[in-house]
């Protein structure tokens, strides 16, 4: 019952996000990150694969959710869709590590979000993939993600329209996703 309500809430939040609500979208992504982290940790530990890739899977899943949010059918629940994306990324990560057998991945709905742990990614790694972007896109990604600037502030600083910043950010995220795929293929 409680789970059903949480799911309903996620779908409602996603609809608000798709309508342009940044605060709700951020909150939803944080909740999804916690659930996916728990799911990935469970899957990796059952596969005796260690925890090293968990945060990568979380980030890849979040990025895929963002870039593929058009594939969510607004009339459906959100959790099965998120779960399918996470499962895809978990299996991908295990395959990269050369695992041949996959322990069954626990159903997403059954996962209880774990409390947020310390983020294992050190900031010193930050340059690796972002550095492959064109200069303008690097600037925009750093400004919004690392420095926490708003789109409006970034647009004003770079003398760009907000629309142009959004487009550049979107392109940058897409290139990051494909750079990631190349690196990990």
């Amino acid at each position, binding site marked *: 019952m409680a789970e059903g309500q949480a799911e309903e809430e996620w779908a409602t939040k996603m609809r608000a*996000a*798709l*309508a*342009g*609500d*940044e*605060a*709700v*979208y*951020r909150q939803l*992504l*944080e909740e999804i*990150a916690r659930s996916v982290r728990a799911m990935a940790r469970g899957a990796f530990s059952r596969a005796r694969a260690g925890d*090293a*890739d968990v*945060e*990568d899977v*979380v*980030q890849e899943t*979040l*990025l*895929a959710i*963002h870039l*593929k*949010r*058009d*594939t*969510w059918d607004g009339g*459906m629940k959100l959790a*099965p*869709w998120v779960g*399918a*994306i996470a499962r*895809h990324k978990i299996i991908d990560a295990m395959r990269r590590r050369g695992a041949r057998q996959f322990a069954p991945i626990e159903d997403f709905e059954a996962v209880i979000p774990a409390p947020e742990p310390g*983020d294992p*990614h*050190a*900031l010193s*790694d*930050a*340059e*690796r*993939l*972002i550095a492959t972007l064109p200069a303008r896109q690097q600037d925009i*990604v750093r400004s*919004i*993600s*690392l420095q*926490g600037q*708003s*789109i409006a502030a970034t647009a004003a600083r770079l003398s760009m329209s907000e629309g142009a910043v*959004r*487009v550049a*950010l*979107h392109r940058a*995220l897409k290139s*990051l996703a494909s750079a990631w*795929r190349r*690196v*990990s293929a």
Partner: protein
Amino acid sequence: MAEGLGVKTSDLIAALAADPQPRGMALSRRYVLALALGLTVSACAFFVIVGPRHDIAHALGTLRFDWKFVDTIALAIPTALLARRLLRPGAGTATLAIALLVPVIALGGSVAMELMMVPSDLWMTKLVGTNAIHCLTLIPLLSIAPLAALIFVMRAGAPANPSVAGAVAGLAAAGLAATLYASNCTDDSPLFVATWYTIATAIVAGAGAIVGERLLRW
């Protein structure tokens, strides 16, 4: 440390949350548009290269000729719908997958009828026909535009299995191409259709699987 974006998850979320609204046309609409565009290009190519057979007015009155379109449309429609569904992670695809039996039943039924109606010493002649090479060339050729258009929009999707999604897109493209080609082909026996159309379709589906494996990964 493992590969990754090399940013903190909270920073990534900040970047994503700054851009909540998707832009542009919805995926399912783009999909329909790609299908229509691919079919239009193929139809133009078809009319320029060969066009319908000259006795088509007479042929339309014969069951064997008309049944070819039942076969090809029964292939094109469920596969096109299934390929679109496959783009949505977690969406149920079982019902649509069962719909793939429709073309098999349509073709199988007509083959059974043909075997009953045609004396067995003519089976081989009917099967071999006179247009096998034509069929094996034109169907894959006319599939190129719809398959390319479909794969292009499908890159925005998230298929659980990229090669399966590519293969199903190939089936849909072959269904459209075969619908065009059927109006040119003078071999109307279900034995011919079940053999050569099927081989041509398998070629396109195989190409779709290979292309899908490369281009639809995410």
